[in-house]
């Protein structure tokens, strides 16, 4: 039988994530109600599957939230905290990378992205980071664009 822990109900990152998923699923389900459940010919309509999937997702998320909150905080405290700032910084770099990928081109944008992340993970070797960023991004660009004709964005560089 679930009981509250001695420190009260457990509201943590997992509960927040489940709540976000439930909200998105609720919006998804609401939009699905704007689609037909059944076509005029009496067949399954475009809203049939999404309504079932969305409703189930909301229901299971709410069930999971209730269970987790009622389970209470674990004895012995939470597990070891991770490098959250590093992850947030990496995600921010990646967001900028997507924004500049086409304007700057694959080669320059990838080199800058790699340099930014290496500056976070390999701080003590700035020169090596520059060399690695330029070298690896050039090799990747050569392999994908020149070797395989992948059609990567060239940016301001002359098309090879």
């Amino acid at each position, binding site marked *: 039988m679930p009981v509250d822990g001695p420190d009260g109900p457990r509201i943590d990152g997992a509960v927040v994530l489940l709540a976000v998923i439930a909200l998105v699923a609720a919006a998804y389900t609401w939009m699905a109600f704007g689609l037909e459940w059944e076509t005029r010919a009496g067949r399954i309509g475009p809203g049939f599957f999404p309504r079932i999937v969305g409703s189930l997702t909301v229901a299971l998320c709410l069930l999971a939230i209730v269970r987790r909150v009622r389970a209470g905080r674990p004895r012995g405290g939470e597990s070891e905290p991770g490098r959250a700032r590093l992850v947030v910084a990496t995600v921010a770099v990646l967001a900028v990378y997507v924004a500049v990928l086409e304007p700057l081109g694959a080669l320059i944008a990838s080199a800058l992205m*790699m340099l930014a*992340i290496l500056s976070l993970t390999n701080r003590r070797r700035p020169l090596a980071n520059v060399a690695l960023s330029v070298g690896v991004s050039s090799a990747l660009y050569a392999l994908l664009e020149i070797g395989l004709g992948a059609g990567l964005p060239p940016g301001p560089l002359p098309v090879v």
Partner: protein
Amino acid sequence: MDVFGNLIDGIGGVLTPENLALLALGVLVGMVVGVMPGLGPSAGLAILLPLTFDLEPTGAVVMLAAVYYGAMYGGTITSVLIITPGESATVASTFDGYPLARQGRAGPALVMAAIASFVAGTIGAILISVAAPLTASIASGFGPPELFLAVMAGLLTLIVIIGRNRLLGAISALIGFALATVGIDIGGGEQRYPFGSPELINGIDFIPVAIGLFGVGEILWTLYSGAHEKDQQLLRVRARDRDFWPRRRDWLESRWAMLRGSVLGFFVGTTPGAGATVASLMSYSVEKSVAKEPERFGKGAMAGLVGPESANNAATAGAMVPLLTLGIPGSAATAVLLAGFLMWGLEPGPLLMDENPEFAWGLIGSMYLGNAMLLALNVFCIPLFASFARVPLRILAPAILAVCALGTYTVNGSLVEVGIMFVCGVLGFFMRKYGFTPAATVIALVLGPMAEETLRQSMIISNGSFGIFLERGLSLALLGLIAALVVLPFVAARLRRRRRPATPPSGPSSTPPRERIGV
């Protein structure tokens, strides 16, 4: 036998210079992928899939399958040398592999693992040659109701077996189904969830989601856990060392473990969700229980390494049976292969072996040849591949992220897909952190259209009545299986509670332990 004639034809079909080159390239790339912490077969396959679009389907799938089992063996190298499994299927290889390496026997351990993989791959190729046509003939009696239930059963099996938490596993699968509904409804042509984006009108492509969940998500998790801050202290292994090769005793200890692991692994591998990880762990338990000296397990027993290695390799062959004959992937890696098949215009299912025999038997034949190539490369290149594990993750991580982004861009030249990929990467990170099952999301994304279409067809056949699922013998059998999968975890938990010995009261104020809630 006709079956073996087909296998020989399949092997012959792969024996072209181009296909052999692709096979060798796939094995090499797979081993490099497997050796690198932070990438596994699923991520490697997802990232490489876009690069195979210009190849012939047979050549492309030969290369991807080679990457798959190459990555499995690459994971073994890190398991043995640095007690870091390259992926979950090689966890069992750490139990005795690393102790062997600590005793200065890394060379014999890795050579025996390579031989075990070869033997298992050979046995797997023979078994799949028999099992695949048999399963296809049974599956040819499947209609839309059975196919729909088979998809549901496959996903449920995955959720019950693979996930830390079944409720979160079910939510993971539903997320995949939801993603699969974006785009044009096949039945009526209506747009669903386009949000004004031309890219979303065509639906969410599998590749950005797979690369995001497995590639980017894994890298973000690795950074979060701090694994990039540790420099690996690698145990060295050199082919010129006197003790590089196994001794006679190693062969004698391991021969039956290889055979048992191969057969066990193949049949476990055919079960969706079970796959190589469960197979390798089961094999370890079996070998320990039948060993004359079980106390040596965990301290460097060769059978404790060879059994799981055989099992995980044979399981990759077993996983091909439901994939080829039913079109149902049992793991994230086979889901990527299925996505590749669909992109090349092939329809895995009961008719694949009849309508595209050169493709199906070519794939099966390539599995045998790939294992032979793995053995040859492994034995002489183990030290070289081991050196890849020395590249620190803090340097590899941004390179892998660049490969993920550019690989995704090459698919359709779409920046929106690169964005979707990174959003899925963040989702994959949180899924890992909180015990969800990214594999279920990916498999549901691939199977979602098939599930909806077969359900639609079933309703058309039955004039809208769900009774069709109860009127057909095969459907009833699958419904029974689904019911068993839903009920089994609760029954198992109840049995476990009954078997626990009653703890005597420790004092006047004894209270029962708090029951773990599985969320």
